């Protein structure tokens, strides 16, 4: 594993990587496949319903070569967009270490936010598994709330095995000896 970019402290290791479920990315893959075949579907339907349409389009050279040229560029465009989407999916991750959670929010290619949440600052971790598919494939939303003065909330949707994530966070929070479930001083 290459955790160089995380700038971990001495003796700090990543215990678990919290990622979105693959179903999130599969949805995009299906959309890309559908879009890839869309010109072919339009072409076949046009041939059936408007047989004269392509006969009437005049181009200088080889018509089939021209269609192939633009279709190759179209597939290339989709191929690039697929990898842009995969990069956003793959780099959107929470790293849980023994000391903290490093939250990387890859909003888009040029917008990346990295936050650190120490276990002693965590007030609550809630998970939400809603619906048949989520229950079947074991994914759900995870929300981490901090207890500091300027309370923050971190959220990731469609997380794989959210129960394990919460369990790991709570167990390491307890190990730090400062459970957030204890009453806060002065409250």
């Amino acid at each position, binding site marked *: *594993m*290459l*955790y160089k*970019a995380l700038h971990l402290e001495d003796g700090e290791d990543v215990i678990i*990587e919290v990622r979105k479920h693959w179903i999130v990315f599969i949805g995009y893959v299906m959309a890309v496949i559908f879009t890839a075949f869309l010109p072919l579907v339009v072409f076949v339907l046009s041939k059936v319903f*408007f047989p*004269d*349409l392509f006969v*009437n*389009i*005049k*181009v*200088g*050279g*080889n018509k089939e*070569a*021209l269609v*192939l*040229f633009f279709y*190759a*560029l179209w*597939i*290339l465009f989709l*191929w*690039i967009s697929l*990898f*842009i989407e*995969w*990069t956003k999916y*793959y*780099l959107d*991750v929470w790293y849980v270490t023994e000391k903290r959670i490093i939250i*990387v929010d890859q909003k888009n*290619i040029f917008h*990346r936010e990295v936050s650190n949440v120490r276990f002693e600052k965590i007030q609550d971790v809630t998970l939400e598994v809603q619906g048949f598919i989520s229950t079947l494939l074991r994914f759900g939303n995870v929300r981490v709330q901090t207890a500091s003065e300027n309370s923050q909330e971190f959220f990731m949707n469609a997380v794989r095995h959210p129960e394990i994530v919460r369990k790991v966070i709570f167990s390491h929070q307890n190990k730090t000896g400062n459970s957030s479930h204890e009453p806060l001083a002065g409250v």
Partner: protein
Amino acid sequence: MTSSQFTIPALPKISVPFLENLPVLFIIFVAFFTVYIIVSVILIYHWTQYGTHKGTMIFAETAFILVSAGLFTVAFLALSYY
């Protein structure tokens, strides 16, 4: 009223003048290739800088470059046969 009155009129002849010009198509190809190179550099930078699984990164880079190279070859050959 008979059904013969509803015949679809013949479509007009469509001409796409800029597509008849091979240099224009070549400029489209080069512009697309330039954009591809820029996007590839950005993506590969992200993968090498922030990626945490070496195997996944190598697989992603290989698949991305090989398939793209294949598609560019098809586009270039199509342009040659045009």
